[in-house]
């Protein structure tokens, strides 16, 4: 199978890879590029564990062909912290125990970041619907929702 050569940007760094035309972005991130922070929970877009951003827009990496990354900017969990400095959401998730097993956490964090970028002052309902594409089976969502709301409040305060 003739491979496609893709030139793209991942977490701000230029990246190049070869992939089969039918490989998903998720497959290439995990198995070609070694970026295993993006998780596969279902492979059909129903769990959100593979949430990434493409040009800042939230998508499931399992529902995107890797070939489509050409010329776009991909954001994954590995790019969320700046060096040792965690993103406020990452920090708040730790402080408020918004994770148990942690498998959904990278996807939830990427989705929550995307949500707060669009809506810095969400209601509980907006957070719940904003994260409805991210299944979590451990937490019952309570602490996740609280952590997102609390982070939003702190980020608004910092921004002032």
């Amino acid at each position, binding site marked *: 199978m003739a491979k496609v050569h893709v030139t793209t940007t991942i977490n701000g760094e230029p990246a190049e890879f070869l992939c089969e035309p039918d490989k998903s972005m998720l497959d290439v991130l995990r198995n070609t590029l070694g970026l*295993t922070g993006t998780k*596969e929970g279902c492979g059909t877009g*129903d769990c959100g*564990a593979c949430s990434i951003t493409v040009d800042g827009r939230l998508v499931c990496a399992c529902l995107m062909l890797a070939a489509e990354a050409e010329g776009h900017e991909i954001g994954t969990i590995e790019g969320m912290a700046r060096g040792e400095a965690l993103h406020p959401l990452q920090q708040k998730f730790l402080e408020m125990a918004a994770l148990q*097993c942690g498998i959904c956490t990278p996807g939830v964090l990427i989705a929550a970041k995307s949500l707060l970028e669009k809506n810095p002052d969400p209601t509980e309902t907006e957070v719940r619907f904003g994260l409805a594409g991210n299944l979590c089976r451990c937490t*019952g969502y*309570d602490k996740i929702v609280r952590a997102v709301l609390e982070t939003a409040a702190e980020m608004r305060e910092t921004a002032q």
Partner: protein
Amino acid sequence: MNVISDKLQVEGNRWIGTRTVRPDGADKVTGRAAYAADNTMPGMIWGKVLRSPHAHAVIRSVDTSKAEALPGVKAVVTARDIVDFPVDKSVMLGIQDMRWMCRNVMAREKALFHGHPIAAVAAINEEVAAEACRLIEVDYEVLPHVIEIEDAIRPDAPILHDFLKHEGKPSNIAGTMTAKLGDVEAGFAEADVIVERTFRTRPVHQGYIEPQACTVSYAADGRATIWSSSQGQFMVRAMTSLLTGVPQSNIKAIPAEIGGGFGAKTIIYLEPLALLLSKKSGRPVKMVMTREEVMRATGPTSGSFSTVRIGAKKDGTIVAAQGTFYIQAGCLPGGPLRGPVGCAFAPYEIPNVLSVGFDVVSNRSKVAAYRAPGAPLGAYAAECVLDEVAEKLGMDPLELRLKNSAKPGSKAAYGATFGKVTFEETVEAIRTHEHYKAPLERNPRPGVRRGRGVASGFWYNAGGESSAQVNITEDGNVLVTTGHPDVGGSRASIANVTAELLGIEHGRVSVQIGDTSSIGFSNLTGGSRVTFASAMVVTQSTEKVITQLRERAAKIWKIDPEAVTWENGEARPAGPNAGQFPPLTLKELAAKANEMGGPIGAGVQLNTQGADPGFATHVVDVEVDVDLGIVRVLRYTAAQDVGRALHPSYVEGQIQGGVVQGIGWALSEEYLYDRQGRLDNAGFLDYRMPVCSDVPMIEPVMLEIPNPKHPQGVRGVGEAPIVPPLAAIANAVYDALGKRFYSLPMSPPKVLEALEE
């Protein structure tokens, strides 16, 4: 929520009861934590499983020659390669019978469900492996299949296993279990009110987000290394050893981070196949299930068909209770009978009880454990019947529970005589909670009705084997190793305990989960046992370390070790008589370790005892859209005796997570089969687990009543929270609609149909 934390913090405790950041946290929020599917190895190849397309079929032959000839294929295994455990002789590993496990990981005589493994292939990549699976020729003789319990127990049902006999005849009833107290018929004769109802539930899946995955490397010297996520690396080692014939001493099982288990990962599916493929190919083999494979071929928990009858006197005294529980085992014996049979009536002191469970096989994947295995099935039936009894008696349902609550010395039908019982406290916590007293607006809008329901639950909890090693590093910090996979934050609790006992900064304690070659045997993470058992062995290990530290200080000061105390992370003379010495810190003692007798560290291996049972009582408000039949949960409060919350956040998390799983079980989750016996909803789209917008905040009420048999007072908390929700929600729906539902899930079509009756 922080208010709770302050209340929980015991006077003088610096770390226990506080919300510290978990030791594995940073890795998990940055994507660095390595789960089973994240592992790769040089030279690694990929394994795939060929699965039965039939629900029930004799396997006449399996021809793998074409698959083996495909370029890129490195190995093929079939049932012939798996160790056979003949059906007439039971070989147990914990609660698992290897006769059934060997037939579960690979179909032997027959394919018993759609998705049953027939063969496995390893090839240079997943695509070639999948193509090779398609080239395997299997000659099936398709047999009639049976899916539902009521069909499987009919006299003319297709029989799955000729060797299973019930009442002398071949049967799909694989076994029974009875719990008995007094004489139920005599008890019912005394009753003024008797309610008897029949209930049905569907199998539900644990729904962990991480599919099963492993990498196995079998080396030329006969030693194998397994990376996989499980609820017990020692279980992985033992079960893989039994199924492959490789001795345990030659297997190292490394626990990856586990992406949810909820009981399901207390057994294995892929590891023995990957080991055998690696052995044949000479290459490390990675296998990862798809979500569809997880849904089809790993064990959900049982569906049930139960009848419960409860009799009470006019004053509310329950005089007799009887339960008959038909529980799905899946295609091989081993349904969780102990859950419904033992737990259904356990919160109550009832003089006459007869509880009988039947283990029913049918052409579904073999069930696996799921959070308080089987207990929610029994509680659903019993707690709904209790609600009706209370109604008939004109009694508040919580008053009825209080009146009959088990007390110290009460005898449970399953055999225990209770010591400390904290059930009343959970009922009282709900009865006096603002939620239970708050007025409920019953018809807030046209077409909408609201209701409130309560229910209680019981889980045994467990102790068992655990090992820990506590080592002081040369620079005076602490490394704790335990043998239990951490599914929900147990490392955080262990760090709190160790830092507390040693009197040092929390950040100086590292906690890791050892592999099978680096820590002593430790039983499964399951049964709500890990925090209980590991805190116990870690406490004892840390105490031994403290003894060593006192001895070292005594040696330096040339005084008696008895004259040295350990306080706030330092050795100090016990009193003025001991002498005047400046304190020696952990760092100072570590620096002098070698000259004063060698490395400092201690390990403890124990079969832990004293895990007293857990009780829970819940209240829930629901809202029903009467035109569409949709039930939504508006408010939920869950009270539970948690013993001591070493880390309150993760205790709350257990309660909140368990409740939401219960909400899914009650309202939206179910296994659906088509007429050919194929699972029709093998994915997260149509297997409907609650999403974030489906549920409200879940308020945990943690009652800290220390377990006197544990050094910190810990009681298991993980399982009891899933026991009450099914009945609590059913009772709330009744309160809203005046209609009782005797079958789960209460899905919209079912609710609307009932409303139109």
